[in-house]
């Protein structure tokens, strides 16, 4: 799994899940940037595919730490300083010797849970798909 993928997995994980799964990996880390809550302007496009416009903001929390030689950056959706710090620590660890351990214990279950949530909604949506049937009209007989 590449860094882009794991950072994205942390960003959208439910805060409580991320914090709980990261807890066993809590490591002494130097704080490069203390957890900070801020906003990101979300953009859309006119007509879905046209010129961009500003739709509105969303909240995010970011944090940066250093463990050994590795800088870890965490960005999570919403307002959670512990979740952003957990993401930053995990990002640093994933660049070192404990990468496979973190991948198995944190990333894999979080990614699977996200996929399960998405699949469950998709299947419910599909159950509401309209099956049209055509009525035989008089003039066709």
């Amino acid at each position: 799994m590449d860094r882009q993928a794991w950072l994205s997995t942390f960003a959208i994980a439910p805060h409580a899940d991320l914090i709980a799964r990261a807890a066993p990996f809590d490591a002494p880390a130097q704080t490069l940037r203390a957890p900070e809550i801020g906003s990101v302007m979300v953009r859309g496009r006119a007509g879905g595919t046209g010129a961009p416009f500003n739709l509105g903001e969303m909240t995010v929390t970011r944090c940066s730490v250093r463990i050994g030689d590795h800088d870890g950056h965490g960005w999570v959706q919403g307002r959670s300083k512990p979740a952003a710090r957990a993401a930053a620590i995990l990002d640093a660890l994933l660049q070192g010797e404990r990468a496979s351990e973190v991948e198995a214990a944190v990333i894999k279950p979080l990614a699977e849970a996200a996929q399960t949530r998405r699949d469950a909604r998709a299947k419910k949506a599909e159950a509401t798909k309209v099956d049209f049937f055509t009525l035989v009209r008089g003039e066709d007989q």
Partner: protein
Amino acid sequence: MYVATKGGEKAIDAAHQWLAEERRGDVNVAELTLEQIAEQLTLSVARVMAEGAVYDPPLAALAIKQARGDLIEAIFLVRAYRTTLPRLGASHAVDTGAMACDRRISATFKDLPGGQVLGPTFDYTHRLIDFTLAADGDPTPAQATDGAGEDKPRVLDLLGREGLMEPSGEGDQTPLDITRTPLDLPTTRDARLQVLARADEGFLLSMAYSTQRGYGRTHAFVGELRIGAVAVEMEIPELGLTIQIGEITLTECETVNQFTGSKTEPPQFTRGYGLVFGQSERKAISMSLVDRALRAAELGEDLSGVPAQDEEFVMMHSDNVQATGFLEHIKLPHYVDFQAELELIRRLRREAEANAQHEATE
């Protein structure tokens, strides 16, 4: 004009204490949790996020609780909170074509790749009060299929391929941000879409409805309406990488409108666009109708006497936080102004009486 007055601090403190007590209501009734609001009043939360212009369900739930369910007050709280946040960047434009759709319908084409998906809709309910909800009990679980369904391409692309639909435009220029740059008239479409996305739902609904009743001829069809989750991606400067920083629910509406053509353009369909935070199709449809109406000048349409096509009227009166602020300020002390008014009326009356007496004696 209103002036500062001193005194009243004790009364204000007492009023706010009572407000807190009234907010809580009967203490023998369990207190509302934010999770309950976020999970069970989802559409209120969606409205507060959309008009507060900040996507954050727990924050909107808290604002609703604090505002005792007054959604415009909650929107005000969210707007005030957002001004305290540092802006950490701007996302790439979201790809609504890749939306994980809970709902996707078209009023213009029956058969679509991906199908018509109703989703959790109020449509086709009978609008009868359901007294079983007054009792405890969990609902029957929703049905689900085995597979997850096909891709759902944009409906208007089907018309676009035949050349019957105007292109939706393109480009990657940085859009105007009305939270940073004051709105200037005449407006550009990027600024209008930002204003409409955070505009009051009721105002947009009425404006859109007026176009349907004949104030503006922009007869609209809902080409496509979709609701679902999209990924928000942003380039993280310290990493030089684009990552997904969030997943948000959006409602998108694209309308198809008649256009008889102009000197430069052949007859073709034109577009109106609505995009709103959360599940809010009334607002998304309204937004797309008003967006199309506001393109009247660009499309060379007759502008006379149509409120929804008057950009100054729509842009300057659509924001419920601004409107509430100005409207409600007139309840604040205006003692000095009113003294002057009172003085003026008394003087006019004295003069009128004197004149009447003068005429009577002549």
